[in-house]
């Protein structure tokens, strides 16, 4: 008997006992749904926690400060930096050439005066600096590599690449003007006035004047790329930086400013972060990375994953026992049918194959159904959780389609069903052929 014939016969047999087959499939489906939904939820939760720790950037991200490394606490996640040191393109290139470095992204921070929107959204409340300009920094980042930077979009969108008229404000900016991230969307679409300062020597003393531009606030972000309240394209930040750099020399002379405030380096995997940090320290720059924290969080989350997977597997194992029980009952009922199969020439192997295929079919159908239900349940949970996170102005949970996980659940359910069906199938195969005639 070929596998094709066995599948055809098993399909008919399963279909004939529709009620029992449906209940058995339902048991498997519930187990598979429990397993898949728990695993999807735990994977999403893990990603969310790690995103929180890494501020949305890659887990193997390293921040390089415009400072020499401090000789103490080099192995700390956030060591105290040493004396200031310029980061220029040459330094960037030398770091980019280090082994296990995937990418190096420059961060520009330039002094800026911000004037909040003339008409603040109703959500804003009065603060101490209500109506007065805010002196802080504009951060320029490579918007085309946003996924490699510790920047998380909370509301709206990011500025277009190279745009001189679009910016995104940070959650810190919101708090400076009396808003919270819960009503971040209210500020999107309003206009922000930016003033790049330059010091002039007016003869009677130094005076600071600003070159004013206007930009639309297109989004709100949470970020750890640099120290500043507003992020923009590199071009916009460079233009402001160039204007400010032409300030009249001060007395005493100010220390030379660094073209780049920071670099954000991505290492080739979390396990290479320590080595890359050491190499960067050797080049002469201070680094920080939450590698220890991420490793610890990963360890704890992995334990949670194991526990949840264990609960799901117990559900699936109970379903497998249901399959075994249903198959054994079916064999008791189908002694006569087994006898007829043997009377017309079926070998033990043929009979075993038919019953194994039946068990596998129940497991596969239950697995597909369960994986689908589990995914839908996870989506519903994610929707509920995301609506809460959004209302709190927090980054939402990203839930993709975990194809590998779903395929694994379906495969696991099928294999478990085959294992559960093995004993009944062997028992059926060993049943004496005489059942076809009936005991005298």
């Amino acid at each position, binding site marked *: *008997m*070929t596998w094709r*014939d066995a599948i055809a*016969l098993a399909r*008919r*047999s399963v*279909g*004939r006992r529709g009620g029992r087959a449906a209940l058995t499939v339902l048991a498997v489906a519930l187990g598979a749904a429990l397993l898949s939904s728990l695993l999807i939820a735990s994977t999403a939760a893990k990603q969310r926690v790690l995103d929180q720790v890494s501020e949305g950037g890659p887990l193997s991200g390293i921040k390089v400060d415009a400072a020499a490394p401090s000789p103490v606490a080099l192995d700390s996640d956030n060591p105290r930096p040493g004396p200031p040191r310029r980061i220029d393109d040459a330094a960037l290139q030398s770091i980019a050439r280090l082994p296990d470095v995937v990418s190096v992204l420059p961060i520009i921070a330039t002094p800026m005066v911000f004037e909040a929107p003339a008409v603040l959204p109703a959500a804003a409340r009065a603060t101490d600096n209500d109506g007065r300009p805010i002196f802080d920094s504009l951060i320029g980042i490579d918007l085309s590599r946003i996924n490699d930077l510790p920047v998380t979009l909370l509301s709206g969108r990011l500025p277009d690449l190279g745009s001189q008229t679009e910016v995104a404000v940070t959650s810190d900016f919101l708090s400076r003007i009396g808003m919270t991230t819960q009503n971040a969307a209210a500020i999107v679409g309003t206009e922000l006035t930016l003033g790049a300062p330059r010091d002039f020597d007016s003869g009677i003393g130094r005076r600071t004047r600003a070159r004013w531009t206007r930009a639309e606030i297109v989004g709100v972000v949470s970020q750890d790329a640099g120290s500043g309240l507003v992020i923009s394209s590199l071009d916009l930040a460079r233009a402001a930086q160039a204007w400010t750099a032409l300030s009249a020399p001060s007395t005493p002379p100010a220390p030379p400013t660094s073209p780049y405030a920071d670099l954000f380096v991505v290492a080739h995997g979390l396990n290479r972060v320590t080595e890359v940090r050491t190499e960067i320290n050797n080049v002469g720059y201070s680094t920080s990375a939450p590698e220890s924290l991420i490793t610890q969080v990963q360890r704890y989350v992995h334990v949670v994953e194991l526990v949840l997977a264990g609960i799901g597997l117990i559900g699936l194992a109970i379903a497998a026992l249901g399959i075994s029980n249903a198959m054994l009952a079916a064999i008791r009922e189908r002694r*006569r*049918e087994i*006898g*007829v*199969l*043997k*009377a*017309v*020439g*079926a*070998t*033990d*192997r*043929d009979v075993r194959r038919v019953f194994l295929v039946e068990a596998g079919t129940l497991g596969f159908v239950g697995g597909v159904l369960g994986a689908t239900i589990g995914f839908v349940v996870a989506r519903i949970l994610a929707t509920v959780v995301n609506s809460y996170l959004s209302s709190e102005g927090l980054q939402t949970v990203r839930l993709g389609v975990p194809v590998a996980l779903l395929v694994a659940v379906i495969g696991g359910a099928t294999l478990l069903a085959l294992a559960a069906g093995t004993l009944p199938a062997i028992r059926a195969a060993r049943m*004496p*052929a*005489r059942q*076809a*005639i*009936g005991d*005298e």
Partner: protein
Amino acid sequence: MDPRPQPAESDRARPQYRRDVPSPAPATPKPPAGAAVAVHDLSFRYDTPEGDLIVLDHLDFEVAAGTTVAIAGASGSGKTTLLSVLGGLDRPQDGTVMVGGHALADLGRDEMARYRREVVGFVFQDFGLLGQLTALENVELALTFAHTSRRRRRARARELLDAVGLGERVGHRPRALSGGEKQRVAIARALANEPLLVLADEPTGNLDAASSAAVLDLLLRVPAERGTTIVVVTHDQAVAARADRRMHLVDGRIAAS
């Protein structure tokens, strides 16, 4: 004259239990030319809590190829066990059974399955059709295990269903067929592999008089046209009357032939 001690007449009315049954040294005589079935000194017993229940007791007979033999006897006389031994559903415990050159006692499990697949065809009292399959698929089933291609077995099944007058009902499931039609499907299935020997266990036992006559006619005519040997267990005198030879079993022995 059988030299062995004969059981008392009163004992014959009920099964006999023995603690010890001698096993004669098996001789393997060749069946005479023209014999499809040769049974020599065949015994069969079941283990029961009360001891061995002897069901077949030193049977000797031959069946010529292409003939029809009717086996009659009271319930418990060993008819069905004899049929299951001839059909390879049970293995001879003592003695020899040769069917078409196959010594059944020597066959392994897979060889026995092959024997059932290639040498014999069964017709059961309760038809033995699989309810989840159509008439066509039930007939095909016998060819499925013979590794016949799907196209050939479908053509063969249609041909046989045409031969038993069910060419228009190939797609019907057993529940949609009458008792007579079910038995005709079973006869078609029994003939699917062109067997040497057809074994029928009370083939008309569940049928009304009209259906019995039609099925009996079919059972005796269609295999005969193909030169097939038929052994039929029956209580039905009409069946026995149409057989070439009749055997009467009493307590596992041939009382009359």
